[in-house]
């Protein structure tokens, strides 16, 4: 496999964490435009730990997930009281605050005779853990997809459990869920924390794949894309957002033949897709039909 294909596949895997993070919140009935903030928290914290303190990547990943969950709780506490559009706007504002904080974040140490670490708008260079430890691109791809498979398996198990039923009921009708004894606010906070941790895991891997991050990597465009992944792919199953990422990045890469107008072509294709399939490709009806067909008795 050539470097370009490996790079595209790795990017699809990395942004899938962000897509799953947005999907999880969508299931709980909340549309967040701010998951890129937790992706950024993961990227910066993981990068600082490995590049400045020599912490092994797996441990840095765990720490980044914890920080991502904490950051999501911090944002969720005041914002999850809001509903619908107000919540979406609040998450967008919180993400922009996070991006501005990344622009102000300066924390450098001398590593091998060079200043390394976050340097505000100048970004954060030298996140070289995978290069210094001889991790080949194919191995990194395997790591990304292995972790993604774990996250996906966990989500699919939850979706089939009682917890999954509660999650969808909170998303569909929080009033009814509350009347059945579900503490809706606390439940949504838990979901937000899990979504934050997932996004942060994607972020730490993204930072190590690119070796360089800057605040602009985590701006509103990424938030819009993360929601689009779930909406294009469909909300019927956790595989939907992954399909969304594959289509989004795949369409972007395959529309290169259109040169400078490819973003117009890409936007048009997405618009047509959402007109034909308003709840995404793998919507609830299709998933239900597939499941019913698969388990139909002869």
């Amino acid at each position, binding site marked *: 496999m050539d470097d370009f294909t490996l790079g595209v596949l790795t990017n699809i895997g990395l942004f899938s964490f962000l897509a799953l993070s947005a999907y999880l919140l969508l299931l709980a009935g909340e549309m967040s435009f701010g998951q890129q903030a937790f992706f950024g928290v993961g990227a910066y914290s993981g990068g600082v730990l490995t590049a400045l303190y020599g912490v092994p990547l797996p*441990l840095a990943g765990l720490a980044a997930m914890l920080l991502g969950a904490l950051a999501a709780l911090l944002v969720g506490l005041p914002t999850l009281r809001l509903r619908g559009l107000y919540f979406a706007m609040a998450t967008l504002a919180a993400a922009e605050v996070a991006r501005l904080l990344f622009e102000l974040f300066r924390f450098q140490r001398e590593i091998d005779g060079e200043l390394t670490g976050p340097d505000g708008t100048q970004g954060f260079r030298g996140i070289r853990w995978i*290069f210094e430890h001889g991790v080949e691109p194919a191995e990194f791809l395997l790591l990304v997809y292995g972790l993604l498979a774990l996250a996906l398996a966990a989500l699919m198990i939850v979706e089939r459990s009682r917890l999954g039923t509660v999650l969808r009921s909170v998303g569909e009708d929080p009033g009814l869920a509350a009347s059945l004894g579900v503490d809706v606010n606390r439940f949504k906070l838990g979901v937000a924390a899990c979504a934050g941790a997932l996004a942060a895991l994607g972020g730490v891997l993204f930072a190590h794949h690119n070796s360089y991050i800057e605040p602009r990597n985590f701006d509103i465009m990424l938030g819009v894309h993360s929601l689009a992944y779930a909406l294009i792919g469909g909300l019927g199953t956790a595989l939907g957002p992954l399909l969304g990422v594959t289509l989004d990045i795949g369409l972007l890469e395959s529309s290169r033949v259109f040169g400078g107008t490819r973003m117009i072509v890409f936007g048009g294709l997405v618009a047509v897709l959402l007109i034909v399939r308003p709840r995404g490709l793998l919507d609830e009806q299709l998933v239900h039909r597939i499941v019913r067909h698969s388990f139909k008795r002869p």
Partner: protein
Amino acid sequence: MRMLALLLALLPATPVLAQSAHADLTCRFTGTDFVYDCVVRLTRGGQPVSGAQVVVGADMPSMPMAHNLAPVKAKPGRQPGEYHARLDLEMTGEWAVKLRLSGPLRDLLVLHYEFDERGARPVPPRSRTGR
């Protein structure tokens, strides 16, 4: 299972490459819209690095995921540590040029350059604001 083994193997991994590479870029506008002939000069510890495989890609930091360049392989130049690549960008402006190195050293270097009709210049630190 293979992934778990990889994770465990990564836990005590020791560094195999301490010194990072440095690169600078010189680009000449070809006269065709947004096409530049670029020379990459690669050094490590002040010494030119020859025999490396250099793949050049580029992103627009102001429009992440929207405008990027499909990676092109750079060809070794006449001077030690020199590599030539033709970049066919989508527009002028600030680009983050990504040099993926393999062979005698593995690394990924990111250089911020401003491209226009005169060529390319490193972006001055103070002008790189978020908006």
